[in-house]
């Protein structure tokens, strides 16, 4: 690769905390904001943000802005010199019919409020959007287009998304159980997460990322883990096995996703590497997930641990993947983030600590 890309700013808005350090502490203490909701025909469990006190027009834009502003402040950059990427699946869809809910309009509003001069780009690549957006930011930097790129991912869980996943029988009526024998579906989650990417050296480096399709089915994961395996295969040459501390998997807790990931990990020769899923803490935060889960995993690796997989008790996939049920110490300076989504998309990204040396 021609140019090294670093994370120089981070911003979070989650139900369990608003800083990477605070969120990490909450996760380590076993906290979660998952609770039952009964505002649709069936009850479901979800992790929602507190809207009390919010009086603006768009809560979606508000949380995206909050996360982006924190990342910009930490990075100490001028947004006018940065590229801007928004990652989301459904954006402001809760206002369908009452305002322009296009992702393009949301991105323009957010970019303008931040003082961004670059043309905004939205990456809407299903559940891997956040990871795909960071890959896009990395490419923009390597192409020499900007000094920095602001990448913000955000998702709210409206009736639109919840009833849709219910219609697909994908939601659990209890706290989700990633990789567990009794897993029965996912929990929707709300969050915003942002990073500022830059060529300016910093402790954390985005080393490589790839997006691959299963070429199999629009709403069902591949039985051979094809795309997930191919995405892993694209990033593994950049890390020595002994330096790979863990893989933070997608782990949505649907029957098919977790089984598919186990197959992909096996094909990639990673059965002996610790894995964990954060869905039991945050639910599935969709357009925010890639960035949020990377930021939390970075904190974990800095503390020398892999975080617990909340909700996991007994292995329920066909291959002996090394699911981290509890917190445990790990060695290595790098981790892989893995995601998969509708449309057959899969993404893998390798991040390394100490990249400035």
């Amino acid at each position, binding site marked *: 690769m021609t140019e090294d890309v670093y994370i120089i700013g981070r911003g979070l808005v989650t139900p369990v905390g608003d800083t990477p350090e605070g969120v990490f502490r909450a996760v380590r203490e076993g906290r979660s904001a998952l609770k039952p909701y009964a505002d649709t025909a069936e009850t479901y469990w979800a992790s929602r943000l507190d809207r009390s006190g919010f009086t603006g027009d768009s809560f979606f834009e508000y949380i995206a802005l909050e996360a982006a502003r924190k990342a910009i402040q930490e990075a100490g950059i001028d947004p006018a010199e940065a590229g801007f990427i928004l990652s989301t699946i459904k954006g402001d869809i809760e206002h369908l019919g009452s305002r322009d809910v296009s992702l393009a309009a949301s*991105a323009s509003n957010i970019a303008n409020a931040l003082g961004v001069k670059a043309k905004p780009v939205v990456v809407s690549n299903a559940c891997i959007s956040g990871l795909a957006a960071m890959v896009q930011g990395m490419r923009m930097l390597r192409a020499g287009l900007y000094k920095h790129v602001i990448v913000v991912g955000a998702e709210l869980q409206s009736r639109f998304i919840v009833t849709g996943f219910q219609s697909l029988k994908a939601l659990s009526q209890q706290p989700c159980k990633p990789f567990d024998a009794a897993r029965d579906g996912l929990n929707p989650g709300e969050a915003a997460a942002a990073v500022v990417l830059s060529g300016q050296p910093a402790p954390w480096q985005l080393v490589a990322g790839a997006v691959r399709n299963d070429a199999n089915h629009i709403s069902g994961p591949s039985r051979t883990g094809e795309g997930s395996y191919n995405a892993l295969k694209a990033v593994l040459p950049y890390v020595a096995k002994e330096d790979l501390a863990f893989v933070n998997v997608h782990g949505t807790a649907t029957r098919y996703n977790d089984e598919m990931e186990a197959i992909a990990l096996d094909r990639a020769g990673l059965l002996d590497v610790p894995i964990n899923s954060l869905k039991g803490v945050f639910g599935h935060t969709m357009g925010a997930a890639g960035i949020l889960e990377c930021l939390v995993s970075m904190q974990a690796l800095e503390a020398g641990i892999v975080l617990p997989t909340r909700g996991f008790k007994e292995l329920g996939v066909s291959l002996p993947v090394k699911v981290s049920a509890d917190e445990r110490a790990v060695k290595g300076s790098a981790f892989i983030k893995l995601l998969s989504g509708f449309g057959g998309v899969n993404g893998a990204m390798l991040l390394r600590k100490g990249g400035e040396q």
Partner: protein
Amino acid sequence: MKEVSIPSGANLMDLYRSLAGDYPKFFKMDTLCKLGFLLAEMLVADDTDRFRQREDRAVLVFSREGSLADDIHYAHSMADFPSPALFVYTLPNIISGEIAIRNKYAGETSAYVLERYDRLLIDSIVRQAFQDPVTESAVVIWADCPSDNQWDARGWLVKKEELV
């Protein structure tokens, strides 16, 4: 470079019959995906060894409105009986997935939303996609479909060796 388009309001069933005709999954697609599917058919029909799985071809899809037309259909169904068949098409990237499935493209598939049809910006993103060392060519689609009878749909095929 091969470039194709579908005039707004064209009869997509006629087009399907003349271009493919043997792919029943077409009938369940929303209009956006039908457009993407047909544009891709026009672009890759002459490929040698078509339908053999390959990882070296990316599918990069752009629009302004994303899946808006289907969003409205799904929102109507929500009031009554939320339709899973409509819901899956409310993700703006399903169009790239449909093209990948049809053609067995196991490479990168990405979906982008931009403020408007901006060829310079699209060309720049497409060029950057070739930073992935596996990608040798890309089906690029601009398909903006705010309603079922009105759209701007065009596509082109980019090969790595043609990039300057």
